[in-house]
């Protein structure tokens, strides 16, 4: 009876077969490190699943389209600005940011850094050991949950603070402070505080990325919801169910 080692567990020895080493070659293949696969033939199961998804998606869209018409307002009129004038919902996070800081920050630097971070991500965190596992570990899951809660609270508080009081309310007057220094400071704090906290637990790279990505994601979600749902005439905050002038944020979808 062969001794159970890691290798024999991965490649169980066939009792009726003989083995011989034929040749050693350099190089890798997608199956390197995977061992005997727990696989099935893709045909027909994959084709069936894809067909089901296609039918489901189409049916859902069809039903939704029967229930709700795409919006169409009056003919475009360059002389008559709508109030509020909003970008499509997926750019509302940017437009919301524009309310709080200098356009160069909100329109260029922040989105530029986010895209750069996304592109650089797999090169910053390149240890494949824990790939394929949701949140890497239970610790990773905790990091994501706490970061999401923290960002949700802080981001919502920052939006409220800027709307109802702002740095101006604290006595700041110089545009440089209002539009650059203040927002940058808040941004650094937003990301820096949880990172500093995490640092004490000696995180690995994946955990740092989990934190940064979650801060960006939840910020984007909060900013989008705030901009899309809570901003009414004059881009001021109102409860979405009680907008002035009969404005309905959903009508701009």
């Amino acid at each position, binding site marked *: 009876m062969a001794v159970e080692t890691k290798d024999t567990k991965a490649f169980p020895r066939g009792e009726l077969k003989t083995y011989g080493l034929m040749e050693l070659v350099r190089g890798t293949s997608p199956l390197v490190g995977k061992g005997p696969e727990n696989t099935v033939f893709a045909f027909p199961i994959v084709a069936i699943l894809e067909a089901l*998804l296609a039918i489901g998606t189409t049916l859902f869209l069809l039903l939704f389209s029967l229930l709700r018409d795409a919006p169409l307002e009056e003919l475009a009129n360059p002389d008559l600005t709508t109030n509020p004038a909003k*970008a499509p919902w997926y750019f509302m996070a940017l437009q919301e940011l524009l309310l709080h800081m200098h356009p160069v920050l909100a329109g260029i630097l922040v989105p530029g850094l986010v895209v750069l971070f996304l592109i650089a991500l*797999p090169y910053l965190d390149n240890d494949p050991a824990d790939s394929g596992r949701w949140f890497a570990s239970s610790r990773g899951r905790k990091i994501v949950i706490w970061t999401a809660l923290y960002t949700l609270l802080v981001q919502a508080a920052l939006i409220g603070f800027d709307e109802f009081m702002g740095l101006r309310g604290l006595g700041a007057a110089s545009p440089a402070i209002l539009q650059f220094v203040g927002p940058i400071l808040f941004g650094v704090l937003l990301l820096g505080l949880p990172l500093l906290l995490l640092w004490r637990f000696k995180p690995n790279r994946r955990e740092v990325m989990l934190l940064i990505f979650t801060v960006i994601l939840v910020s984007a979600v909060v900013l989008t919801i705030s901009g899309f749902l809570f901003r009414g005439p004059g881009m001021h905050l109102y409860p979405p169910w009680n907008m002035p002038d009969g404005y309905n944020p959903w009508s701009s979808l």
Partner: protein
Amino acid sequence: MANLIDSITASRVWRSFFRHGWPDTEINRSLVMTTNIFFHLHPVKVSRKSLRASSTWGLGVIATILFIILTLTGILIMFYYVPSTEMAYDSIIILQTKVLYGQLMRNMHRWAAHAMVLVVVLHMLRVFYTGAYKPPREFNWVVGVFLLLMTLGASFTGYLLPWDQLSFWAITVGTNIAGYAPLIGPKMRFMLLGGFEVGQNALIRFYALHIMALPLLMAGAASVHIWRVRKDGGLAMQGGQEELLDIE
């Protein structure tokens, strides 16, 4: 009957279309995948885990399906839509009121566009939180980031086309954001709009980007993206799960 079927499937015409037998043997199931242009993006065999809903939620497949629905409904709308500031709005009204199922086509196109942005973002979240961007999948992650940006671009350029107040001011606000970049911002905005404000030049540019340039780029990039999934070994799943084997 059996004879008839046999003689059809044995005919030269049939065998020129289907270069394999009935897919009930391993070799024929492999050949289905490798001899069919649409199937060949898939691997011959897939891991059981990748078929589980909780592994991917099917988001990549749904995004592809939405892209196909958008292409089909988009082509139908193109038979009626006129990309001129004089006629665009009227052509949408005609599409909605005079064309059989015109309103339905437009509704489906609109809602599929919103759904696609949402689904692509969710797909990215799934890939990120399962760590599926790590080697050897770095390149495919980057392709995915560009596909996300192109999805946003395709949706945004389509937003202008109805030429109503909603689209006009949304695009005015949206392109103003692009104009804020120091030095190149105003030039970028001018290039996008073909002028200093949203007008006929902007409409035709957005139209060309929306119906041709971006869909072509996206179809190309999506093909690379899906093919790369197979080349990178399918679903990322080293470590972690019970059926995985701990090999150093």
